[in-house]
């Protein structure tokens, strides 16, 4: 029980550091730590497949892509102009209002049952694979199409266009 609250505290701390760090590289490194705490959450929920996929896909692929892009751009530290203070206060106030609304609407539900793992092999690869390839076979194939089109689009967008270079 204490493990969950400790990891949850770490998640909130690191995600706060993600949005407050001045240097974008530090921001990405804190995001990696945040995703690592999410992986621990998945392990605590016994969702082992998701823990491994989160580890490999998010921390291994997506965040490394972020880091590569950031290093391609060669940003200086003082490149980002700061917003005026009134906009910052308004942003934090707006986000805080969203949080208060969510928590308050949750409070009206009353107490909930504890999360109990009834089926211990729910998050393992074999039961998930059976669900994925029986009920969700068509969405799975469509998502492969989505990834293909995203790849083609990314290559098309990021390659240098010789005609429009003079603009």
């Amino acid at each position, binding site marked *: 029980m204490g493990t969950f609250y400790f990891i949850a505290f770490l998640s909130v701390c690191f995600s706060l550091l*993600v949005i407050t760090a001045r240097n*974008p590289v530090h921001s990405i490194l804190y995001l990696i730590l945040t995703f690592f705490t999410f992986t621990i959450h998945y392990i605590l929920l016994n969702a082992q497949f998701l823990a491994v996929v989160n580890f490999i896909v998010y921390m291994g692929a997506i965040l490394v892509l*972020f880091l590569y892009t950031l290093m391609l751009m060669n940003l200086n530290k003082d490149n980002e102009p700061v917003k005026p203070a009134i906009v910052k206060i308004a942003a*934090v106030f707006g*986000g805080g209002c969203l949080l208060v609304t969510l928590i308050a609407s949750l409070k009206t539900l009353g107490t909930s049952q504890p999360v109990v*793992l009834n089926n211990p092999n729910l*998050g393992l690869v074999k039961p998930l694979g059976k669900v994925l390839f029986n009920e969700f076979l068509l969405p799975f194939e469509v998502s492969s199409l989505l*990834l293909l089109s995203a790849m083609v689009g990314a290559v098309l967008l990021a390659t240098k266009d010789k005609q429009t270079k003079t603009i």
Partner: protein
Amino acid sequence: MESFLNAIKTVPLNHYIMLSAIIFSIGVIGVLLRRNAIVIFMSIELMLNAVNLLLTAFSVYRGDASGQVFVFFIMALAAAEVAVGLAIIVMIYRNTNSIDINVLNRLKW
């Protein structure tokens, strides 16, 4: 393994919802607060992950594997979104030498 299974036995579902709400709100604040396009993208990733965690918690709570399959699809979607989005950011940087989103204010009109 057994201790891991015992670790979540006393955590109420409300606390998972609260944690996800807090992290989602932090993501929203990050989108509103920063002007660096890459940091805004990272805040969006934070929001997606909060939803992923909540879906997994609901899936374990209900004993239904569909929620975890849904998380898998969200991860595929996030990968596609990040690839296209970062390509757009690289293109913007090449044209304007900046990733400040305020140079894109012509999109407002």
